[in-house]
């Protein structure tokens, strides 16, 4: 039966695509192939669901297989040694390891293959763990059959693999950090202090991010601005950091070591002293004096103060901004010119200023785009934006902050009175599977709400904070102790999610309706004010940035790390790293730690000076190429072009450094003239054949 099948398969090898393999220099030598197959038990992870002995015996029957072995843990040092020894002893030309995912251990076994004296690209992996034993745990027969097929498919490819030489490219000695919150600032400082020229791109007019909006930080109760401002100043004056505020990434091209990034510097309307000097205005430019702001007739809400404080059309967010340069809000500016007059001889203001596109070349990039609050008004049961005295946690931060709209006096928005009973509602939109909120834990709300409770106890005599919680997650260093301390200070903790908040129309007091799940009884509590610990979500517009850099996102929209445990700062795009909350909710210590990790990761290729690119780029089989140019238009990286070949014939040419190896060209070439290295047509066809027409001899 098997014989028949093989014959049929050989007869079919007339298809146009397959003859491609015969094209002289591109022909792999399958007839002389000697493949070694190594099956991994992975303890019981694989062997528990798959009959390894059966797979091993089956592998022996496959064409081109010269040696078969198995081991408990192939990835261990003795396991790798088996591969190295077998290559030498049995004169192998290719290696197949049936184990876990190539996304996990391909590099490990490639190294072992190389140590054995073969080109590392002579290695192929059969994934019999993640995509087999683990997903068919209770179907031993099905899983074993699948493993046999997977080995057969891998052997078929391995027999046709070729030696490939990774391309080495130099790395530009500069880095970019997108987003200048505490994560971006820390990463930029670390890179700069490591001697790397760093571009720090921030879309708002000042650096500092969310942390600069906070009053205090838990559990140490440091004043947030006090610990952040020195860092902001350091960033501003570090000679290795080129700070670009009011700037957004517009286009990203290139690859690790050589990213060409276009940044749009939005017209600020105000020149820095350096910019003024460049324009020949001696001693001019903005010095932050504020004369312009004083005369500006336009009044707008200040988003930094959560719109609870006014600002002018020419403004700075707060007194500690870095850089201390005023900015014009073009949407509200009426171009009356009063500010220009007030600025006088400094001539800093240019009402006709235009956006500017700046091209930067960097070796690596860190994304630190942060978060925003979930629009909690979508969950209307808590009455945000319906009742005046329901505020979000960020609004509370501004209300309690000494530099905030009320000078640090917590007041009710409805009547300016000091509240005596305040309810803090945790998990407002977090851990919410209703489809409206966010299913994940936002991780820092428990702690900041406990901090809020402390802050009001400290500031308002006789106040009573109530904290409505589902679970208190005080997971960090000294956090649990902080939680107990605030309990001792008198904060009341009530376990139960609030179902509804109602308002007394006369007093504007609020009724919090909840189930006390510890006492197992419903409750109705009258309070003066409600603070919602709203869920956090990725910053709006972050998808554009993410896609430009080729970074995937998780189901919740957070940027996806290369590996949640072992590579939390990296992404699947080489040379692009993540820092801070853009990767998932985290508090300040975790954010800073990750930023330092990302900076370290981003500095490695730069300090190495060159990186190896996987040699998966396309090549053109010139004798097959008809010069139609279809592929040129398909390539998203402009890596292909038509050039004049021998005898004036037009042929396609690949610029290898630009090619990323997607194979979109190879998937369409009508003449089969494109050779995708390591994913060549004969190799893929051999895999399909191996699966469907059998491989037994």
């Amino acid at each position, binding site marked *: 039966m098997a014989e028949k099948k093989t014959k*049929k398969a050989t007869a*079919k090898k007339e*298809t*146009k*695509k397959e003859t491609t393999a015969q094209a002289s220099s591109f022909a792999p030598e399958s007839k002389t192939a000697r493949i070694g197959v190594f099956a991994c038990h992975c303890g019981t992870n694989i062997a528990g669901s798959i009959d390894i002995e059966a797979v091993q015996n089956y592998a022996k029957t496959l064409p081109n297989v010269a040696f078969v072995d198995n081991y408990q843990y192939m990835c261990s040092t003795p396991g790798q040694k088996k591969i190295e020894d077998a290559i030498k002893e049995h004169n192998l030309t290719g290696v197949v390891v049936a184990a876990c*995912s*190539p*996304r*996990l251990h391909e590099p490990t076994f490639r190294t072992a293959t190389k140590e054995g004296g073969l080109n590392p690209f002579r290695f192929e992996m059969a*994934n019999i*763990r*993640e*995509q*087999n034993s*683990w*997903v*068919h*745990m*209770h*179907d031993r027969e*099905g*899983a074993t*059959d*699948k493993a046999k*097929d*997977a080995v057969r*498919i891998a052997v078929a490819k391995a027999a046709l693999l070729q030696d490939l030489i990774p391309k080495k490219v130099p790395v530009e000695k500069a880095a970019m950090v997108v987003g200048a919150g505490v994560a971006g600032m820390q990463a930029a400082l670390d890179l700069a202090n490591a001697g790397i020229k760093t571009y720090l791109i921030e879309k708002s007019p000042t650096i500092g991010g969310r942390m600069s909006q906070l009053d205090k930080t838990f559990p140490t109760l440091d004043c947030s601005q006090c610990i952040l401002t020195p860092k902001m100043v350091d960033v501003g004056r570090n000679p290795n950091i080129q700070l670009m505020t009011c700037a957004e990434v517009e286009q990203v091209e290139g690859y690790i070591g050589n990213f060409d990034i276009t940044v749009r510097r939005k017209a600020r309307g105000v020149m820095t002293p350096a910019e003024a000097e460049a324009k020949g205005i001696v001693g001019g430019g903005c010095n932050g004096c504020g004369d312009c702001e004083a005369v500006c007739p336009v009044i707008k809400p200040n988003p930094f103060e959560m719109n609870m404080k006014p600002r002018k059309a020419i403004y700075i967010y707060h007194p500690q901004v870095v850089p201390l340069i005023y900015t014009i809000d073009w949407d509200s500016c009426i171009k009356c010119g009063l500010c220009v007059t007030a600025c006088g001889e400094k001539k800093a203001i240019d009402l006709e200023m235009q956006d500017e596109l700046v091209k930067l070349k960097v070796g690596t990039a860190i994304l630190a785009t942060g978060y925003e609050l979930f629009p909690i008004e979508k969950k209307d049961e808590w009455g945000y934006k319906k009742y005046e005295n329901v505020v979000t946690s960020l609004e509370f931060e501004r209300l309690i902050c000494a530099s905030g709209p009320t000078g640090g006096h917590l007041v009710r928005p409805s009547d300016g009175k000091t509240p005596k009973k305040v309810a803090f509602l945790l998990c407002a939109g977090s851990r919410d599977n209703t489809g409206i909120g966010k299913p994940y834990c936002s991780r820092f709300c428990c702690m900041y709400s406990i901090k809020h409770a402390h802050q009001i106890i400290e500031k308002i005599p006789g106040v009573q904070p109530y904290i409505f919680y589902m679970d208190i997650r005080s997971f960090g260093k000294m956090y649990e102790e902080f939680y107990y301390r605030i309990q001792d200070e008198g904060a009341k903790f009530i376990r139960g999610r609030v179902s509804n908040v109602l308002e007394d129309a006369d007093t504007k007091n609020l009724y919090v309706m909840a189930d006390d799940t510890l006492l197992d009884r419903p409750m109705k509590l009258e309070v003066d004010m409600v603070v919602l610990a709203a869920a956090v979500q990725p910053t709006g517009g972050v*998808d554009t940035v993410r*896609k430009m850099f*080729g970074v*995937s*996102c*998780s*189901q919740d929209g957070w940027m*996806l790390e290369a590996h949640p445990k072992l590579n939390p700062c990296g992404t*699947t*795009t080489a040379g692009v790293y993540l820092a801070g909350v853009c990767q998932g909710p985290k508090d300040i210590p975790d954010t800073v730690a990750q930023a330092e990790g990302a900076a370290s990761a981003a500095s490695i290729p730069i300090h190495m000076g060159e990186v190896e690119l996987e040699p*998966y780029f396309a090549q053109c089989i010139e004798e097959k190429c008809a010069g139609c140019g279809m592929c040129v238009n*398909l390539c*998203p*990286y402009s890596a292909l072009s038509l050039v004049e070949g021998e005898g004036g014939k037009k042929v396609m040419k690949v610029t290898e450094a630009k090619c*990323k*190896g*997607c*194979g*979109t060209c*190879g*998937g*369409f070439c009508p003449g089969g003239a494109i050779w*995708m290295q390591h*994913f060549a*047509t004969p190799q*893929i*066809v051999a*895999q*399909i*054949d191996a*699966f*469907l*027409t059998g491989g037994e001899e």
Partner: protein
Amino acid sequence: MAEEFQPKILGIICNWCSYAGADLAGSARTQYPPDIRIVRVMCTGRVDPLFILKAFTDGADGVLVSGCHFGDCHYLEGNYKAAKRMFILKSMIKNIGLEDKRLRMTFVSASEGAKWAKVVEDVVKTIHELGPNPITQLTK
């Protein structure tokens, strides 16, 4: 009907999203039927329609091509090209007498392990309903 029909389903999936998604289904131990065999490519854009025709003439009962979601392609737009090609190919295989449901293109991201399991389950179910590939019946 004496022997139970064991479908041969070929999955050609991209390295960055769907392969990672399938790996995640494994890490999470999400169970699904084993009737699929995977060939990994870097991008679904690499999938030459001829691979699929070859698979069907070789006797595949179903082919699943799975890549990144639109806008999330690791190589910018390979998945758009693939989706276009699969769309055209579907009408072609219909013309040669194959049910177009035998060819599926799906989009499974690296974080959608559960979705991958569901996709495979669904494809296996569809192929079971359709029965064996008629081409293999003809050449028997």
